[in-house]
């Protein structure tokens, strides 16, 4: 069996990984990552906005769609395609594709997101990796506040999973 490390190569110049230890079993972390009612509680930094709508079809080719509402009520969509969904282990999606594997159209900064969870003692080691096309994409994603927002959201995720126990 292939291990995760063989599926992609992390390049620190292009990619970024965020890691958290969650004191709850992988089952709860998976729920928090995939169910709209939970995503609404943590996906967007609370001081920045909220999740207006979330839809996830957990199968290869399924839709990944999370609409964010920012301060003044404007909504920003995040649309992509699920590539792999192994419950309680790994969820992979990309904004390079529309749902159903249809080649996407954009002049945007696409990412492939790899979310993995592994049981560790009584808790879960959660890693969120975002792969970028090139250094400039990673730079732009860092400058735009995406990186900072992701850090805040992951802290919110950890806190939210605690309330699910």
């Amino acid at each position, binding site marked *: 069996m292939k291990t995760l490390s063989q599926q992609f190569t992390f390049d620190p110049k292009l990619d970024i990984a965020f890691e958290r230890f969650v004191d709850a079993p992988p089952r709860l972390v998976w729920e928090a990552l995939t169910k709209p009612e939970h995503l609404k509680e943590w996906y967007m930094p609370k001081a920045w906005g909220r999740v207006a709508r979330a839809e996830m079809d957990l199968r290869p080719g399924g839709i990944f769609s999370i609409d964010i509402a920012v301060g003044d009520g404007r909504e*920003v*969509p995040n*649309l992509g395609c699920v590539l792999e969904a192994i419950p309680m282990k790994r969820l992979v999606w990309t904004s390079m594709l529309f749902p159903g594997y249809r080649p996407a*159209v*954009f*002049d*945007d900064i696409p990412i492939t997101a790899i979310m993995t969870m592994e049981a560790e003692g009584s808790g879960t080691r959660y890693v969120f990796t975002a792969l970028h096309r090139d250094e400039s994409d990673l730079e732009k994603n860092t400058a735009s506040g995406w990186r900072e927002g992701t850090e805040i959201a992951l802290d919110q995720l950890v806190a939210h999973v605690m309330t699910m126990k």
Partner: protein
Amino acid sequence: MIQAAAADDVFHALSNPTRRRVLERLSVGPATVSELAEPFDMQLPSFVQHLSVLEESRLVKSRKHGRVRTYEIAPERFKVVEDWLAARRRLWEARLDRFDQYVKQLKEEGK
């Protein structure tokens, strides 16, 4: 079922004021990404995601010439909305006709 899935995409695409304004603009004629983004106070990647949702719903089409992407309306898809509304209207009109008939009948009986 294909029609139902199309309706989901189309109505979702139409549910956002930014995307409706883009469609209003494109109804006048084709436009480039920067022309479309100009009236909106929004980061370009966020705006482009709106265009992606429109493209995914197939209400718009895009073409790339060199480095410039141009968007245009794809009128066929608007029929999904028209058909859905027309079907609701037919149903209600049929109901109103029957109601009309019933009231007339009551009037006749009351004479």
